[in-house]
């Protein structure tokens, strides 16, 4: 019986504490920078698309919400012809971001993406692609990797040694 009264008293005391509610639309909650929200495709510092169409995000996606078609431009540089994310399926797990070798696909702190029509949740490449670099400002995949594209041959990337002439390696 005493315990009952003590419980009632404790609940009564709650009246003098501040509510923990964050009144969302009026009062924006703090979101950590690594928040996993709306997915974007970023560009490298030169303004080119970072995505190289390797399909790793699509493979890593546990709900199969990412679809794309890789293609190549005249310089031999790979890019997605189209890139589609179905946000009505996406579970915002961030596996695509972890799988991406070029920091192209990134999750942002935006979560306000409700729609009246479900079809509007299917984002195409032009909806996904942003003009900036996202979380990795200086990174440019083609400048640091050994891949040969037009205007950059083997050995011309940053910190890359010139290719070894295998015929000079004779003992």
């Amino acid at each position, binding site marked *: 019986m005493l315990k*009952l009264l003590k*419980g*009632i008293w*404790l*609940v009564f005391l709650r*009246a003098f*504490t501040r*509510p*923990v*509610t964050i009144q969302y639309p009026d009062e924006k909650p703090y979101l950590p920078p690594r928040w996993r929200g709306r997915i974007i495709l970023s560009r490298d510092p030169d303004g080119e698309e970072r995505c190289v169409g390797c399909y790793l995000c699509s493979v890593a996606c546990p709900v199969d919400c990412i679809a794309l078609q890789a293609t190549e431009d005249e310089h031999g540089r790979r890019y997605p012809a189209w890139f589609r994310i179905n946000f009505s399926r996406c579970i915002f797990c961030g596996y695509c971001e972890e799988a991406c070798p070029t920091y192209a696909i990134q999750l942002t702190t935006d979560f306000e993406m409700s729609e009246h029509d479900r079809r509007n949740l299917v984002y195409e490449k032009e909806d996904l692609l942003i003009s900036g670099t996202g979380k990795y400002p200086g990174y440019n995949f083609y400048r640091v990797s050994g891949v040969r594209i037009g205007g950059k041959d083997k050995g011309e990337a940053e910190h890359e040694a010139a290719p070894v002439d295998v015929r000079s390696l004779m003992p």
Partner: protein
Amino acid sequence: MNEVAFRLPIIAGVLVTLLTLSALLIWLERRLLGFWQERYGPNRVGPFGLLQSVADMIKIFMKEDWVPPFADKAVFVIAPAVIIVTVLMSFAVVPFTPSIVVADLNIGLLFFLAMSSLSAYSVVLAGWASNNKYSLLGGLRASAQMLSYEVFMGLSLMGVVMLAGSFNLGDIVEAQRDLWFCIPQILGFIIFLIAGLAETKRIPFDIPEAEAELVAGFHTEYSGMKFGMFFVGEYLGIILISAMITVLFFGGWQGPWLPPAIWFSIKTFLFICLFILLRAALPRLRFDQLMAFGWKVMLPLALVNLTVTGALVLAGHPSK
């Protein structure tokens, strides 16, 4: 005729006030529950969310007023009216101030008990007429609960009657001029409070509608304004029990400085808040616990209270 003409404004005033209050109580309960659970409760519609009740009412009036085809139609329609009528009838005898009382009955207390017993019919009939097993279970539980708690509710009040020497509620309030009955009748007060909780079917005694087990108990099949009437009836019941506690144990309108109506409102309001606090704090009892508690603990206590009070009153008046 003159008598009626004189009473009419009082009747209208009491009716309008009570119905408005019972609508506001929906807002008050949700707000208070919110504060006791560290959240805000409804605060969007109007200032402090005060218009929430209005929004709820508009919504509930727009709802389809549906009678299930398998229900006993006449009884199904009458049942929600019964609860409102009986509770509002009980308010007829409540003395809000020395002058504001609809019917100054000399057996006011008995009339209140009779009306609150009749309100059990509403629940039972609703459960029966719905022709649904959950509703029937809810109605069965309600009848058992209300009948068994009615017994010691009446007994717990007899101590007050003995001390005041009258069944008239106005006289009972007058008798508390020097000492509120909550002190000599502390046991009676506690028993009446618990019985009142059971009578209004509030947590921890809300087993007739126990949403975790019985969907919504006796009003499972009700929708629209018929459901709304059960709701308003429940809130009116809370106001009624709070008002009765104020009248019987806490000196009614009496208090220093402030006018009687204000005193009555303050005391009643505090008890309404207590009802809501109990809902915020306590879990629901099991049905067998409820019955065992009622018959094995509360009834003997009420009888002890009755006999001791009677003996003391007799000792105080040896001539009688």
